[in-house]
């Protein structure tokens, strides 16, 4: 197992170099002068020269990439043009917000999607089955930014039950420790803040979690249907075991591997979706920061942000692969 993990980690190195190269090339192969694009048409020649110098744009392309990659190894992604702060510092302030939102979104997706899928599979062709699969199909066909707008309109604007944007209401005192406000408010035993934090999380988490929820429900259903047809399930039933035991103990365990794969793959959808969800809900996370940086033509931030998203995605995929071991001892790691 340890060997397998080491091997997989080593295999990540070329992928990460490749990802870094792609991001680097996208930014540096802009037709025209990157400095000009960033500063705009009316920039003075001095400002352009200074930016070129500070970003190393005068060096040959391969030297630039080597410098960029060396920086990456030291977690140095350059400086933001907007704020002149290191990009990595800006990212690490905002990433916890994205992480918190993604976590609650995936919890929503799993808590609703898996039971719905199991119930649909055990009641195949029932009204619930057809209805929930129709909902799931609409769920995967729906733009999440539209769902977000509709949620805001209904629950925030019309009913006034939940706040439409941001992470924390004005006037709530909370010290930022981890920057994951949910954890911060628990550490400080600040229950008023916890309630406020959770109320801000509900709408964006549902918006972000709906597509993964639909996909997880569909996958759970088909995976369960597959397993429930197996001989050992018939054997379990004929031993006189209760439905509940057969479904949850015998079937679910074996149906879990494709489900876990899908849950893991959905993390990529979540990261992409975070860009849209955070924009709609003015959620101060990495996704919104990235979009703002694109509008501001702050390319070091765009480059660093996309790279950060891609590398987290690569690591999550690795975690998914490794977690198979815990569930399926038959998988061999060679």
């Amino acid at each position: 197992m340890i060997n397998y993990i080491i091997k997989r980690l080593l295999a990540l190195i070329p992928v990460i170099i490749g990802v870094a190269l792609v991001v680097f090339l996208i930014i540096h192969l802009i037709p025209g002068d990157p400095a000009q694009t960033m500063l705009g048409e009316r920039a003075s020649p001095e400002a352009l020269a200074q930016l070129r110098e500070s970003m190393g744009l005068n060096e040959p392309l391969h030297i630039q990439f080597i410098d960029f990659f060396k920086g990456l190894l030291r977690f140095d992604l350059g400086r933001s043009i907007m704020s002149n702060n290191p990009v990595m510092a800006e990212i690490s302030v905002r990433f916890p917000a994205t992480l918190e939102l993604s976590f609650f979104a995936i919890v929503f997706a799993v808590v609703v999607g898996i039971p719905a899928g199991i119930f649909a599979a055990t009641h195949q062709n029932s009204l619930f089955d057809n209805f929930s699969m129709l909902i799931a199909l609409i769920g995967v066909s729906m733009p999440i930014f539209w769902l977000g707008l509709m949620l805001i309109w209904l629950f925030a604007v019309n009913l006034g039950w939940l706040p439409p944007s941001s992470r924390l209401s004005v006037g709530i005192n909370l010290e930022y420790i981890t920057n994951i406000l949910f954890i911060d408010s628990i550490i400080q035993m600040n229950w008023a803040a916890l309630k406020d934090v959770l109320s801000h999380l509900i709408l964006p988490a549902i918006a972000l979690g709906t597509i993964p929820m639909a996909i997880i429900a569909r996958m759970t259903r088909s995976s369960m249907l597959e397993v429930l047809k197996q001989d050992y399930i018939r054997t379990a039933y004929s031993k006189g075991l209760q439905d509940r035991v057969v479904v949850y103990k015998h079937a679910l365990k074996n149906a879990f591997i494709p489900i876990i794969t899908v849950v893991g793959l959905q993390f990529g959808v979540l990261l992409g979706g975070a860009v849209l969800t955070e924009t709609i809900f003015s959620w101060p996370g990495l996704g919104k920061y990235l979009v703002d940086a694109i509008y501001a033509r702050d390319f070091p931030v765009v480059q660093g942000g996309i790279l950060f998203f891609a590398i987290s995605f690569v690591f999550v995929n690795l975690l998914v692969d490794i977690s198979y071991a815990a569930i399926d001892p038959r998988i061999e790691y060679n």
Partner: protein
Amino acid sequence: MAEEKLKEYGGNPWLEAGRRLMKSRIGVLGIVFIGILVLVAIFAPVIAPHDPLEQNILKRYQAPSSEHLLGTDEMGRDILSRIIYGSRISLQVGLFSIGIALVTGVFLGLIAGYYGGVLDMVIMRIMDIMLAFPAILLAIAIVAILGPQLRNAMLAIGVINIPRFARIIRSSTISIKESEYIAAARMMGANDFRIIFHHLLPNAMAPLIVQTTLSIATAILEAAALSFLGLGAQPPTPEWGAMLSDARSSLQRAPWVATFPGLAIIFGVLGFNLMGDGLRDALDPKMKNV
């Protein structure tokens, strides 16, 4: 027995697949949705009650009425007409961007699978690296650099969809190229070109068609997302995602501005998803339930 079956199928697997598709309820529903979408796009100038770009400040934010069935937006433009014209853009995006992905992906997948070796390794590692990005983020990166335009958004969506096609066609190619009929074709003196395009490709078609249909659905969603972020279609283009972006500021005043373009997106995307599911059942019984 086999002969009877052949007669029954008319000897044409495509006809048989078409027949099976028409039997699947969701497949037919998908075809109906897509059919409506295509007709609306073709006859947009005839159906649309108003000019989609005509502004009338006196009529801004009018609720749905008999004159404006779906109301008007912040510029007093008729939302129904804009949605009708928007169908042209969404179909165009779906077909054009997936066209790019299909042609490039199939080409790369075929040569990678057929020739193997270093070529295969290089192509597929590049595909792996592209798949290491969350798709929409790669599209955002490409558009951020090329500049926010509908054409660039289509190109970006095309590029991010290449790896899926390359992978599918490569794995089919690898399994098909060992078949006896390929060896027979080679013995009869067929060159690589003939083998690839006359023997390999037709036999790898089924999963490709399913993937194409489902990809058009995601492409429409991705394009709407890019336009929503201001990275795709630019105002005053009546693109569904861009219309939603405009609607954000008037959610309280005029919720219909945000509601209907979203429903239009769902309608179009659902059509292609349903047809994709139906095709999958019809063309490849093994892939059922996935």
